[in-house]
């Protein structure tokens, strides 16, 4: 170790090693010189063995060149490890609730855009709305998707003009919700079908596709795109339930009746924020459908921009 080594030392000690009472042993004083601005630390018992060795070099003329002993003590290492652990835990929260959300959302948005482009080439880019008041007949009802099979893209202009989120079959956390985005509850109905098209999604973490679910207002468009076309729903109401209230997934939510002619969409996510104690449920009512062959966006998707 040469002179610049020593010049850097007051900085490191100022970081609080001495404040922790885990400071350097007496041997450092000779390495730094008696003119050091750093006060003489209290004798550390951990450094006691080195003090004995110190006696041999301190008397010699080469005291200034003496190699500084590593000021590593057991307590010091434990303290620094604990401080590091605290920082890492806080970093994890920053990563989980903020950084990773942004990165994952970007990836999921791109994946959804690719699917949309595949099903309706150029339509999303052109952003031209299809004609209103045209009846395209009964909507095409697609088959139940396979597990983790992406079959739809959800658009909610209230969540942002660019909001696109892939919908896949099943609600497996590992295979669908944590990676692809939205999951379709197995055996609930499909878009446009009489009954309940029920989806689950994270409200926070993993891209948080339903982060803004509580901002929905009555009449907001909720549009599902599949390979067959666009299914437009209108948001009707929010509901807050316990995590085991599976009746919200019924063809008529919260009712035992199976026979129905109405077609609903149900979005489920966590409530409140930073908790999983409850579930927030958003219901929408089917309004219209527009086949992919029209090669235009459903009018509902462009109304917020106008």
């Amino acid at each position, binding site marked *: *170790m040469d002179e*610049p*080594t020593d*010049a*850097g*030392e007051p*900085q*490191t*000690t100022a*970081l609080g*090693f001495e404040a922790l009472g885990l400071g350097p042993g007496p041997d450092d004083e000779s390495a730094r010189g008696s003119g050091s601005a750093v006060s003489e630390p209290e004798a550390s018992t951990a450094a006691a063995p080195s003090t004995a060795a110190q006696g041999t070099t301190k008397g010699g003329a080469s005291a200034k060149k003496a190699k*500084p002993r*590593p*000021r*590593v003590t057991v307590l*010091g*290492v434990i303290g*620094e*490890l604990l401080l590091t652990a605290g920082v*890492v835990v806080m*970093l*994890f929260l920053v*990563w*989980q609730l903020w*950084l*990773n959300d942004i990165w994952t959302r970007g990836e999921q948005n791109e994946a959804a855009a690719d699917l949309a482009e595949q099903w309706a080439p150029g339509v999303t880019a052109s952003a031209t709305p299809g004609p209103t008041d045209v009846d395209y007949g009964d909507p095409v009802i697609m088959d139940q998707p396979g597990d983790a099979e992406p079959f739809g893209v959800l658009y909610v202009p209230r969540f942002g003009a660019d909001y696109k989120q892939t919908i896949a079959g099943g*609600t497996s*956390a*590992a295979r669908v*919700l*944590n990676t692809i985005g939205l*999951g379709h*509850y197995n055996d609930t109905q499909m878009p446009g079908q009489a009954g309940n098209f029920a989806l*689950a*999604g*994270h*409200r*926070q*973490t*993993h891209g948080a596709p339903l982060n803004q679910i509580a901002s929905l207002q009555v009449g907001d468009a909720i549009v599902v795109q599949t390979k067959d076309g666009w299914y437009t729903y209108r948001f009707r109401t929010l509901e807050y*339930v316990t*995590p*085991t*209230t*599976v009746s*919200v*997934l019924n063809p008529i939510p919260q009712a035992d009746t199976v026979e129905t002619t109405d077609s609903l969409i149900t979005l*489920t*996510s*966590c409530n409140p924020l930073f908790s*999983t104690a409850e*579930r927030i449920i958003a219901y929408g009512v089917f309004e219209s459908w527009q086949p992919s062959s029209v090669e235009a966006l459903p009018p509902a998707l462009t109304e917020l921009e106008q």
Partner: protein
Amino acid sequence: MYGALWRVLPGPWWVRLIIMLVLVAAVLYALFTWVFPLVQDIFATPDVTIEE
């Protein structure tokens, strides 16, 4: 521990600072890429579905 690392690094203070920053960046990358996703998958994934 970190003080010892600082003393072990070669060069003038600014070279050590750069090395330290590179080390910190490498550690952050490892945490973000491998450690945190693993930790999240194992015990920090919120349960969002409705089920009995």
